[in-house]
């Protein structure tokens, strides 16, 4: 199925996108156990995904609902928590897994890993290890689209933590000043690394700040894929029509810790339990069953996703490591070969 055709916004396609993201991340999470965390442990020999792995488990409805309206010619910038965005934009799942394993067959040839997952061929210009760093890049890409009069837009995902960094303000102002074709999407998962965002944020968050810069925004239940889909459809249409930037403020929740080996013991267990009741995949499944979809059809989607992920794991496991020379390649052409 081509996820970038209009059919990607059909209910079963939305469900499929979410399920693929969940299956991919569950597998990556399992493969990361024993790997490096953000807290100073060394990577264990057993870990297949050795580096920090930021999971978007429970947030799948946002990329699924937004990216359903994007085309391969549209650009997208992402965050350190970017597996969902990358998959939903149409990147190949197996090559993503290879990259997480650090293998030569990954999208970045093993040079980036999870935090820098990217597939430029589908317009996915990269996850980013720096909070809010994707915003200025996104407005630049959108600026280029406007200058070149391309029939394409840029979508920029960022988290609630990013709105407290200066580049957020600079980028929103920039987008409005030049009336750029960019959709900002704040995935508000309520946590900034291991600190709750609420007490660290003045005012009402991303949409309120957008309003201050005369950028129309919509707030949506980010765990309701059909609501995200419908709201994103409207905003994307406005951005495509040349109405300037828009902002989607999606309220969701980060089910996992900051990284895969972070147990998030610092938060109230009741908060997590409440959030688990709003699992976007469970909600979508219940909704689809109520509207007449056969359980077997949904099971088949889930089984196919799991089989695809299992195959990707095997492929990544068998794939070769990068050639040592890759450490010296694609640095720069000017002065290439002069390493000392």
């Amino acid at each position, binding site marked *: 199925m081509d996820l970038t055709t209009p059919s990607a916004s059909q209910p079963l396609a939305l469900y499929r996108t979410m399920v693929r993201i969940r299956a991919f991340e569950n597998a990556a999470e399992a493969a990361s156990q024993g790997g490096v965390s953000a807290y100073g442990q060394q990577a264990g020999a057993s870990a297949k995904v050795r580096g920090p792995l930021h999971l978007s488990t429970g947030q799948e409805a946002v990329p699924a609902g937004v990216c359903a309206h994007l085309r391969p010619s549209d*650009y997208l*910038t992402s965050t350190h928590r970017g597996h969902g965005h990358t998959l939903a934009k149409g990147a190949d799942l197996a090559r993503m897994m290879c990259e997480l394993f650090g293998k030569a067959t*990954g*999208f*970045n*040839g*093993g*040079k*980036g890993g999870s935090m*820098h997952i*990217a*597939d*430029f*061929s589908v317009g996915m*210009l*990269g996850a*980013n*290890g*720096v909070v809010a*760093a994707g*915003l*200025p*890049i*996104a*407005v*630049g*890409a*959108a*600026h*280029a*689209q406007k*200058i*070149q009069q391309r029939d394409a837009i*840029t979508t920029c995902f960022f988290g609630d933590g990013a709105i407290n960094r*200066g*580049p957020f303000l*600079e*980028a929103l*102002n*920039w987008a409005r*000043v*030049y009336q750029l074709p960019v959709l900002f999407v704040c995935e508000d998962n309520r946590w900034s690394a291991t600190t709750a965002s609420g007490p660290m944020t003045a005012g009402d968050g991303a949409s309120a700040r957008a309003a201050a810069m005369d950028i129309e925004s919509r707030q949506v239940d980010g765990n309701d894929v059909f609501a995200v889909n419908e709201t994103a459809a409207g905003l994307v249409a406005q951005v495509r029509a040349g109405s300037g930037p828009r902002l989607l403020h999606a309220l969701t929740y980060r089910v996992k810790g900051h990284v895969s080996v972070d147990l998030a013991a610092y938060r109230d267990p009741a908060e997590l339990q409440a959030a688990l009741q709003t699992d976007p995949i469970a909600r979508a499944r219940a909704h689809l069953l109520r509207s007449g979809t056969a359980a077997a059809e949904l099971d088949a989607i889930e089984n196919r996703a799991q089989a695809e992920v299992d195959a990707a794991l095997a492929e990544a496991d068998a794939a070769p490591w990068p050639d040592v020379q890759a450490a010296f*390649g*694609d*640095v*720069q*052409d*000017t*002065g290439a070969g*002069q390493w000392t």
Partner: protein
Amino acid sequence: MDLTMQQPGAGRFAFGEVREMSYAQAAAMAVLREMEVDSRVVVLGEDVGRGGIFGQYAGLQARFGAERVIDTPISEAAIMGAGVGMALAGLRPVVEMRVVDFALCGMDELVNQAAKNRFMFGGQGRVPLVARMPGGIWDASAAQHSQSLEAWFAHLPGLVVVCPSTPQDNFSLLRAAMHCGDPVAYIEHKTLWGLRGEVDAGQTAKLGEGRRVRSGNALTIVSWSRQVHVCEEACKALAAEGIEADLIDLRTIWPWDREMVLESCARTGRLLVVHEAVQTAGFGAEIAASAAEATGCRVARLGAPRIPVGYAPILEAQARIDVGKVAGAARRLID
């Protein structure tokens, strides 16, 4: 293809023609030339529409319009970051930071984004971005407008670092920077803008090639940017004493012309590196160590003391490397 250029405020400037102009005009001519032949080239930054605060973009917005010569808010992170996004999307942005001191507000965008993009994403994209960030002491402008930070950028894999010292080089090297396809920290000098000299529109330069300013066998002096002119004066004084120095204008800090420098050092047996930047951990240390390792020559460094630049003339002077200091260091080296 029309290979003539419109000189801001004057007539056509044809290829092969030689004309006297300032360091700032030479830069504007270089951008003009590239914008004429490549529609992907855009300029963005504060005040560029009115020609830039030093006149280094004079006439460009009138010629190419506000969509290609883009006046921006005071948003260094967004200017640099948007430049990265534009480059990834197929444009060739020239990004103006006003002064290198302000470029520090866009460092994540240059260091973590522009410089690493190509490698980190496995060669999926390129960032052909030229970040102009004038450096050096700006008379009576104190600590936040007077820094020489080229060594910082030389330390970063992925970046090219250029420090032009003459109008000709500001024309030729800026064009080379815009052609190279890599992100470039292009560090003009804040007080060279008015320096006049002949510019040959047909002359090209290669990044990584130094320029021999004077020939001699007594010692090698390596410098760059405005300090080259100070060293040239010092060389004249030394020559009057019978000391003939080999003076090299490095022109690009990374990559640097190892071949020219090492050949000279092997011949003279003595190297003095002079820069306006703080001497401690300055790029002179890199050159001196490389030359000593490769040729066994005697080395000396001459840079500013590790102090912020003060405002009052007597304070500011403590951070300057003047002709007397250069000549003195040269004499000590050959004793």
